[in-house]
């Protein structure tokens, strides 16, 4: 594995290796070994052409705990905002000797384009491309679910997970569907028909328009953010109606299984897809997801960068 572009590139055993590695790294960073020398001398570039706080900071923290040097490159205030192409940006990063680029971009497929065109020799890690995928988020979600609910098993067989909300625009949902089903979980998507993508019937999931019918049988609910910036097209009549039918509130919270957990990739719209008391309840693992994100991203960086550098991929 040279890049991390999509969950579909990972085999089940590779995904489990990432989760197991993250488990050991989490133990190392829980303890006194906060900083590890493993990636000393490597340069990692955070190329964020779209806004992000937790993903960028999480990758930066992960890289720094492994002693890599981190260069932050955001679109605002860089030549990207002057219209520089991805190719020129990539070649600049190559010339600066970047060993890995973590890219977030509003265009689906941007990370794959960077990886496949050999504009640069380093590893490419997809930190979210348009409405396509966000693999590191899915891995940290699977890691969090496994820690709470798998009881020492390596995969997620037998668990039932509901992904609720704006599946249409959600790269988090796409990556999670691929990963959770790969790990043996049953996934149910819960959303109004307008927020489900075309072709969803070919996905390995069940679909429900009725949150109340699903809530009692799931082991975890993953609430998706309503992306207000993409909501100009009237996908639902109004926010109050959406909350009533598809929001997580204290009534639905009470009806969940005693062991079930509540997840949200953040940032949350409190009061829209999730009420404040649900987000802060004892079932909520939302803050823990952020902590786990650092361990999972350390595992990704370790597995992609610590080994022998691959000679292929250099600009021809």
């Amino acid at each position: 594995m040279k890049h991390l572009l999509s969950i579909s590139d990972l085999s089940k055993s590779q995904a489990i290796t990432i989760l197991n590695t993250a488990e050991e790294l989490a133990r190392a960073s829980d303890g006194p070994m906060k900083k590890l020398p493993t990636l000393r001398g490597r340069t990692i570039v955070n190329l964020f052409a779209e806004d992000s706080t937790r993903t960028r900071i999480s990758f930066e923290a992960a890289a720094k705990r492994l002693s890599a040097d981190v260069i932050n490159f955001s679109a605002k205030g860089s030549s990207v905002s002057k219209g520089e192409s991805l190719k020129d940006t990539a070649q600049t990063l190559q010339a600066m000797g970047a060993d890995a680029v973590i890219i977030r971009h509003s265009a689906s497929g941007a990370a794959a384009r960077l990886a496949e065109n050999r504009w640069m020799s380093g590893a490419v890690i997809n930190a979210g491309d348009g409405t396509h995928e966000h693999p590191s988020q899915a891995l940290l979600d699977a890691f969090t679910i496994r820690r709470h609910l798998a009881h020492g098993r390596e995969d997620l067989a037998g668990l039932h997970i509901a992904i609720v909300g704006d599946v249409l625009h959600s790269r988090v949902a796409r990556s999670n569907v691929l990963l959770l089903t790969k790990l043996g979980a049953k996934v149910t998507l819960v959303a109004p028909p307008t927020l489900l993508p075309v072709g969803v019937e070919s996905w390995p999931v069940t679909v429900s328009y009725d949150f109340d019918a699903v809530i009692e049988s799931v082991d975890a609910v993953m609430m998706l953010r309503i992306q207000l910036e993409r909501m100009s097209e009237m996908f639902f009549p109004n926010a109050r109606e959406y909350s009533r039918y598809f929001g997580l509130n204290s009534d639905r919270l009470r009806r969940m299984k005693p062991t079930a957990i509540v997840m949200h990739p953040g940032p949350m719209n409190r009061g829209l897809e999730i009420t404040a008391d649900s987000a802060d309840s004892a079932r909520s693992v939302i803050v823990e997801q952020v902590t786990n994100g650092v361990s999972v991203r350390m595992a990704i960086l370790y597995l992609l960068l610590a080994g022998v550098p691959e000679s292929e991929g250099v600009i021809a």
Partner: protein
Amino acid sequence: MSLALPAPDMARAITRISHEILERNSGSETITLLGIPTRGAHLAARIAANIEAIEGRAVQHGTLDITLHRDDLRTRPPRALMPTVIPSLGVEGRNVVLVDDVLFSGRTIRAALDALGEIGRPQTVQLAVLVDRGHRELPIRADYVGKNLPTSQNQVVRVQFTELDGIDLVSIEEGAPL
């Protein structure tokens, strides 16, 4: 393949190491045994069991994974990480005994010293190995040695434990000629 240490000899060597550790440290109270995975961890568990049998009380023991501190990471594909389990009293001020199966170049032990330094400051660090096969590349020596085995560079020393391999055995195999 030549047989270097059959099961009874291996058991005697481990028993002797256990006694030597106790003698040097005047008992088991201040000792923390840390095995280096994979086989060093099994060896540490055996030594701990011996010491507990001799002293009649529990001894602090755990494992220390050194993968993240290796100096040869860039020359191989990424390795899986193994568990690090530091026993309850930690390493601060303790007499830490690092335990590994084979002492060869000394690079594993160097990495272990780095890893240990991240965790705390032991009073002393000692080294116990089942086999010392020579060919050191760093100024490192063991305090407790099960058996010194003269080998050539291209031979492979193979240590097997019942827990992992179904048999207790140390053997020397001819590797690829240099």
